[in-house]
């Protein structure tokens, strides 16, 4: 990134190759929309280009770029909330298609693993954005608590509490959805 800052823009291609899938995965977990996630990844690299002069070189590049990603997602979320334009799009993949097979967990019998995972995905979408972002960074993007704290600009212990509370809420929402479908 230091080389990009000094004008060697070809190196941004390397950074794109290294981070585009991680960023896409982050946005996809938050939005459940492929097209929007691709737009947001493009937005991240547009911001990296625009604000490359502000990169200080302190701390890991991954945390810097995910801070940008998080801010971009927050801006998008606020814009949508103000305009009242909630994403009505439902990704077909979120329904069942490519869901993995169960591990033989006996609790799945009778309810169906696809259904449970679908409820889990829906529950993830119902969490408040802050908890969802923290959980996604922790479970899917492989960040340590310390790195997440840096990205979210909070303490490490706050990150731990947020992740745990988010998991508890997920469990409760999944149970509620299950009850609604099988009263």
């Amino acid at each position, binding site marked *: 990134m230091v080389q990009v800052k000094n004008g060697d823009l*070809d190196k941004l291609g390397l950074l794109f190759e290294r981070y585009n899938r991680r960023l896409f995965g982050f946005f996809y977990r938050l939005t459940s929309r492929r097209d929007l996630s691709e737009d947001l990844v493009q937005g991240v690299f547009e911001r990296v280009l625009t604000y490359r002069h502000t990169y200080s070189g302190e701390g890991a590049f991954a945390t810097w770029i995910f801070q940008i990603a998080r801010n971009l997602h927050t801006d998008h979320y606020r814009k949508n909330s103000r305009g009242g334009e909630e994403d009505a799009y439902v990704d077909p993949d979120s329904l069942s298609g490519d869901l993995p097979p169960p591990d033989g967990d006996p609790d799945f019998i009778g309810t169906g693993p696809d259904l449970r995972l679908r409820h889990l995905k829906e529950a993830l979408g119902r969490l408040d954005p802050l908890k969802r972002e923290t959980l996604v960074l922790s479970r899917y993007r492989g960040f340590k608590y310390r790195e997440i704290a840096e990205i979210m600009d909070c303490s490490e212990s706050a990150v731990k509490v947020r992740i745990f509370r988010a998991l508890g809420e997920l469990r409760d929402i999944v149970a509620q959805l299950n009850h609604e479908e099988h009263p």
Partner: protein
Amino acid sequence: MIESKYIPLVLSWMRGDLKPAEKERLQRLLDEGELDLLDMKEIERTARELDRLPDAEPSGRMSDRFYAMLAEEKTRMQPSPADRLQHWIKALRSRLSPLRVGLAAGIFLLGLLAGYGTNPLLDSRGELQRLQDEVAQMRQVMMLSLIDNGSANERLKAVNISSELNRPEPRVREALIRTLNRDPNINVRIAAVDALLMHASDPGVRSALVASIGRQESPLVQAALADAMLVLQEEGAIEELRELLRQEEMDSTLRTKIQDTITKLS
């Protein structure tokens, strides 16, 4: 609900990396009823299930958009020739003093005389030609190693290097034709069209460009090939272009462009 002060301990238990002292503490808290094992197991199960949610993959369009943006930014950053000349004159003025210029000219003349005295001029020219050939050879090797690189940026570099070669070997031309027909990145393919245009005096390259029209699916590459056919005034491309027009889903702007190209070539 589990109290916040116990959460780091429970998270360590979920990750399975409790130290012996922490294990004892957890056991004590469970015995005292401060923590509920059932509650903990349910949350741990939710975390495990989260890991099983399927991931999605981005489409190739995302990569194309990024590289188009990068190319645009690079073009925007390049200073105009007038700016460069102005900058060069400014830098020269600040560095040169009459004494320095005199000294440099003297050393240059001395070197020239000494060189001419020890080597006949004809030998120097031969040496220069040999060096130029070596540099060209190195460029070809670099181009051939970069053209198969996984990064579209590197492949784009390879195609640009090939444009600087005056007499490329057949394998360089073959690599460019292969790139034009098979590279997954549209920008690289378009660059390959421009690079091949420079070697179009070779009949093999011309016929490869014509044959490639029918193999392309991207409207941008098809438009670039149509432009190339106009530059080459290649009448042999008319049939391939007419074949393109038979595609029903063709973009109207591209259709007009292809029809225009056919009219100009006929």
